[in-house]
Structure formats: C-alpha cells, structure tokens
C-alpha cells in the first residue's frame, strides 16, 4: 500500500471517471491538463495555501525589496515582525534616531521599508507563493496535499461548461467555492489564542 499521489495523470483519470470518458475523445488530454492547472491556480489564489518563507536583504538607501509570490504577509527583522503600514504613512511615524527597519508596506511585487535603510539589513519574508503549471504526467501540484482533492470539482465544472452543461457546471463551481473557503479557514486561518483560552471557565 502506498500513499495516493496527485499527479497530473491521476488527476486526469479522476476527471475522466466523472466525465464518463475513459480515453481522450471529446475531452483531449491537453484540455483536461489546462483545466487542472487552472484549478491549481484558483485554489492557490483563493486559499493562499502555498506558504513560503524566504530571505531577502535591503540595499543601501533603497526603500524597496523585491519578492516573488501573490502576497507578502509579514516581514521579520532581527526576531521582530515589522508593522504593516500604508504608503501614506511613510516618514510620518518613525521615531527619530531609529534607522533600522521598523515598518513595511506592500506594493505590487515589492515591499517598501520604513525608514529607508542606510545599509543592508537581512529580512525574513512570510510569502504566499504562486504555483508552477504541471506539464509532465508524473508532476504533482504545488498546492498542499490537503487541498488537492478540490482540483477535481473545479476542473470538472470547466469541462461541463465546455460540454454545454452550464447550469450543472455553475452549481458544481459554487459547491467548489464553498469548499475552498471552508478548507482555507479550517487549515490556514491563524486565529490567535487569547489568555482566556488557557483558563477553565
């Protein structure tokens, strides 16, 4: 017995089971592959489930630091998380005499550091990444294993739309949206524990 592997091939097989088409006929492999990759992207965007940690560094007299991914959720410098601000607050909140990174804002694929660093400061970025499309049959999705079951309903909805079954396709898509939201809250939502949680009520 082995753990089930969500490869491009096995996902296509799961889809073909439900489309009642054992081998490529109305639905080509290429089309199903595109639906599967679309599903993976959709899950990654809506669940923000590809969470990564990367190292970066400021440059002297440069405010902006590049990152790759959908979103930079938090930035850490010297064991302390920087406070997220809006660009509007730049230069209005920093205490005089403190030149090290204290605040950040996100804009496009960059984070802006406040105050503007006078040197190179090492940062740790908590990022939500985007997936890379699968091409080969033995490749697996970049989204976490626990989210991979959601690929099939999303891809199935797209396939049924192609087959002019729009009502059912939309109903399955709505079902999928609910499940993404649920699983995202169940697995990823970080709700901090309060001091009251530690006591007996």
């Amino acid at each position, binding site marked *: 017995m082995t*753990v089930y592997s969500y490869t491009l091939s096995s996902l296509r097989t799961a889809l073909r089971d439900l489309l*009642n088409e054992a081998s490529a006929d109305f639905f080509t492999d290429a089309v199903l592959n595109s639906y599967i990759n679309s599903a993976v992207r959709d899950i990654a965007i809506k669940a923000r489930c590809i969470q990564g940690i990367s190292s970066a560094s400021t440059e002297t007299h440069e405010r902006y630091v590049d990152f790759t991914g959908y979103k930079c959720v938090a930035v850490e410098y010297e064991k*302390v*998380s920087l406070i997220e601000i809006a660009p509007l607050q730049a230069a209005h909140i920093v205490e005089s005499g403190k030149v090290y990174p204290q605040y950040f804002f996100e804009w496009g694929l960059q984070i802006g550091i406040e105050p503007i660093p006078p040197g190179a400061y090492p940062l740790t970025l908590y990022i939500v990444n985007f997936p890379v499309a699968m091409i080969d049959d033995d490749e697996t999705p970049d989204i976490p294993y626990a989210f991979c079951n959601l690929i099939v309903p999303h891809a199935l909805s797209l396939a049924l739309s192609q087959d002019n079954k729009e009502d059912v396709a939309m109903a399955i898509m709505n079902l999928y949206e609910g499940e993404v939201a649920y699983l995202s809250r169940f697995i990823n939502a970080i709700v*901090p524990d309060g001091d009251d*949680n530690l006591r*007996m009520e």
Partner: protein
Amino acid sequence: MNLSTIKQEVRSVLDEVSASRYSDAEILRWINAAERDIAFKSGCLEDVLSLATSVESRLVTFTGFKVNHVLYTVGGTYSFPVNWVGTWKDTMATIWKDTSDTIWKDSSQDNLSVTNPSRSLQRITPKQLGRIDLHSSIIPQYYFQWGSYLVIEPRPTVSYNLEVFVSVYPSNQMTGDSDVPEIPEEFQHCIFPYVYAMAMLKIRRWKSFFDYYKNYISVLQRGIDMYVERQKTKYIELKIPTLSREVQQR
C-alpha cells in the same frame, strides 16, 4: 469494516452486483478519494509527534497538514515529598522540628519522582513576532503554522523538545479486500454518500449527485461536531442545576 465490505455495499446500493456501468477500479478510486476528503475536511486522523527545535532557528518541520496544539516538554523530574506525616531533616546530624513532637525529614523513601509538567504554547499570528511579553523567559511560548513549518516564538537558542498534536492524511491507499480505512470508525460511514455522489455524477443524474453530496456534507459535519470539536468542561457543568419553576410548583 474492510474494503470488501465497503465495495459490496456500494454495489448493492448502485444495483450493480458486478462491474458493468462502474468498473472496480473507478469505485476503488472513489472510496480512497472519499477517505482522503473526510480526513482533510474533518482533521479526524490525529497524531502526536515528538519534534525538536534547532539552534537559532524558529522553524520546525512537521508531517501532516494541520497543527492543532503544541506542548513544550520541559523534561526531567523533580522530587515531591508524599509522606506528609513524615519527617524532614537537612543532614544526618541536624533535625528540624515544627513542634516538640514532630520531626520533618526528606528521606528518599518518602519522595516521589514527578515529571516536570509540559507547557502548552499559544497560537499567534506572524505579525506578533517579537511584540509579545515573553515574561523574561527564552523557552518556547508561542507558535503559528506556516506551510509545512511550525514557527516558534521566541527564536530558540538551544534545542527544545515539543509534542505537536497534528491532523494527518491517510498514509496508504486501500487496495486489497482486507484493507481497512485509516480514518476512525465513527467517520467511515461518511464514505458511502460520497461514493454514491460520484457514481451519480458519472451517469449525469445531476439532482441525485447534489442530493447525495449534500447528505455527505451533512453527515460529515455531524461527525465533526460530535467527535472532533471537543468542548472543555465548564465549572457550571459540575454543579447541580437549580430546579425549574415548574418542578418547584409540583
């Protein structure tokens, strides 16, 4: 309940004793998919991992998909005197007394070796790193899950032992007739409506698919409420309830 039993019941309900409309391979795939789906949505497959932090690193890798609780295991033991009517003395030569009749001693026969208690860590958000009162202590006190990492606050300077309560997914697909699902027995009945839903979807009986799937979600949620969502006992539940006015009047 093993795979053979599950397949027999599925075929009975689908009114197909042997493979015709539905192949054995398809039904097997749906059964395994159901088990995975139940594990992902309920977190019912639970495990406790013994892990350790690394020096000067916040990150601890874990297996599974969800961290539910973390305990810092202090380790070691302390000496607990159990014979409270016993006697204490600090050396063979010196005897401490509280009254002229009572002599105290900490002899080894009277002490119990007790494990230092483990301490639970509180969950925080990434934005709280370095901004929480650590009570002048450097031991692990807070954590959050980020991807496949457990992130510890404060950043450990030495290796600390942790007990991590995780939810995992099935490590093996069922293939042989004697294989049993890894999910707990109280969730195994949820496999059936999921499989029936997939079977209806294949033959394009859309209403039946949605009905079966709705039933699947409903029974799964009931299982989560009864067996996964564990309610702490409150003090008020330990008291005898006051009588209602109707009972008093009787």
